[in-house]
């Protein structure tokens, strides 16, 4: 291998290498393109949507796709396209925020449990308690207390969700901890914070990204199942998961409701997984040799 290129091959050392990466890495480009498009569509919903998502025109129920209603209308005569565009706001925001929160809590609990042997038993037994309940059982009282608001839904996803992250991150921490460089760093006088955040956490990026990207899709499904119980996003507000749920019995009349919402979720999950797997490869210096 050409020795002169080594520095440039690590994207973290040179930020202007970003364009190079995008040009050579088609998978990442496609993933980012879908992700950014979805985000733009939802953010610019008021501009893009031709109708108010809650506006009902009962005489136009189940109308087929037309120029005024690009994807037709649903059982209440609402514009499906507008509902899809607005629906992303809730779905994407809740999925992204709750995943980030799960990762943060999981990283904190997982690394501390893995690193400090004394904390391990306490933290992991607490985690086990959360893992022992079916997610929905923990979600019910949260929604009952906070109400079916976005905040309530995020909390209802977060409470049973972080435990899995903590488990995975703990086990990676344990395996990284046994390496010689941790001991050498400790022998040289490094503080625990230095070891945790400079040595252990960067070596856990792989599994963290893996479970986070897989989790993003699962979060949308969780929102759906909450909606199925009437605990999710409440009816007039559009949301992808709820739309699939409501659209399923109407598949023969207007397949567009469930289909379009389903395609949006698939696209979102696909994009995050593409980005996630490529990010993992890029962040791992060991993959350099394959890149060229």
């Amino acid at each position: 291998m050409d020795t002169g290129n080594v520095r440039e091959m690590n994207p973290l050392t040179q930020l202007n290498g970003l364009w190079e990466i995008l040009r050579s890495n088609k998978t990442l480009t496609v993933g980012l393109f879908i992700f950014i498009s979805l985000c733009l569509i939802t953010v610019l919903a008021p501009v893009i949507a031709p109708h108010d998502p809650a506006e009902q025109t009962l005489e136009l129920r189940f109308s087929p796709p037309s120029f005024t209603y690009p994807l037709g209308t649903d059982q209440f005569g609402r514009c499906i396209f507008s509902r899809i565009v607005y629906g992303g706001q809730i779905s994407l925001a809740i999925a992204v925020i709750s995943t980030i929160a799960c990762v943060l809590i999981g990283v904190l609990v997982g690394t501390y449990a893995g690193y400090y042997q004394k904390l391990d038993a306490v933290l992991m037994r607490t985690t086990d308690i959360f893992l022992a309940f079916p997610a929905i059982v923990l979600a019910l009282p949260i929604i009952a207390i906070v109400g079916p608001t976005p905040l309530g839904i995020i909390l209802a996803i977060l409470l049973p969700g972080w435990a899995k992250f903590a488990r995975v991150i703990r086990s990676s921490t344990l395996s990284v901890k046994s390496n010689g460089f941790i001991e050498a760093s400790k022998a040289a006088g490094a503080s625990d914070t230095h070891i945790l955040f400079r040595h252990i956490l960067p070596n856990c990026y792989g599994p963290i990204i893996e479970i986070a990207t897989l989790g993003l899709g699962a979060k949308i499904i969780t929102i759906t199942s909450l909606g199925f119980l009437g605990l999710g996003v409440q009816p007039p507000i559009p949301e992808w998961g709820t739309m699939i749920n409501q659209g399923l019995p109407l598949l023969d009349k207007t397949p567009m409701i469930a289909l379009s919402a389903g395609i949006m979720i698939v696209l979102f999950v696909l994009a995050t997984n593409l980005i996630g797997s490529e990010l993992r490869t890029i962040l791992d210096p060991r993959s350099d040799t394959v890149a060229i």
Partner: protein
Amino acid sequence: MIEGIGLTKNFISENNRKKHTRAIEDVDIRIDKGETLALIGESGCGKSTLGRILLNLIPPSQGEVLFEGQNLAKMTPSELRAIRWKFQIVSQHPDSALNPRWTVADSILEPFRIHSKMTGGRDQKRELERLIDLVGLEPEQAARFPHQLSGGELQRAVIARAIALDPAFIVCDEPTSMLDVSIQASIIRLLQARQKEIKCGCLFITHDIQLAKIMGDRIAVMLDGQIVEEGAGILDHPAHPFTQKIVSPDPHETVPELVPVCNCSSRACSYLPSCPSRSPLCNSYPKMQEYGDRRVRCHLLS
């Protein structure tokens, strides 16, 4: 300079808290400035545990470690961290001794970053050039990641990190055992040269008798958690039966099966079960005693 007195370490089994494993027992050890003590023994006899206790990476169950007269166990964690730069370790596995996500240069410079208060004025770039030159690495190699280097090159980088702050005491835990035979000699020469230069004390852990003779100013033989013989020329003129056995030309020579002299108690000499010259006296625990230039833990000599 660094001294361990009456060091004992018990490991408690994770599954059964009542089950203790005695890794090392009643070890007295002393390493002076600029001196190398070669520690040899079979695998699992507690050599690495002793090294880690001296570095204060694990606390001893009993006994104390004195560094320049100070008891390390009595220092606060932050005080201890502040003098940590004086201790370094070169471990057995060079491929896990460097963070795979850092460049080799970052790893070599890590001690400077940890002790930035002390070394704040130094130019890290110049220090890096000095260190990689000392250990014989190329600048391009330092810019790479650990997986792109060979075992010997990695061990050079590990040595560069270990000598970065001119430490007072280095533990070399079988630094060449994982390396290719062709590279071992150059790494050993490198270690010797750098150690002479910075005049640090060194605990050289190995199971290679020839290597121990080359490296050690003094040699200590460890058996089952205890140092049984220690002194300058003990491998040429062994006194303890165990030392005699390990330096014997035929390593496969089996010790004749002997009828036990009596019921072996746990307080008996640890070499009793396989000692060819045992006597009823050996059922009691022998003390470490000085005989001229060496210290031996054996009833035969007294």
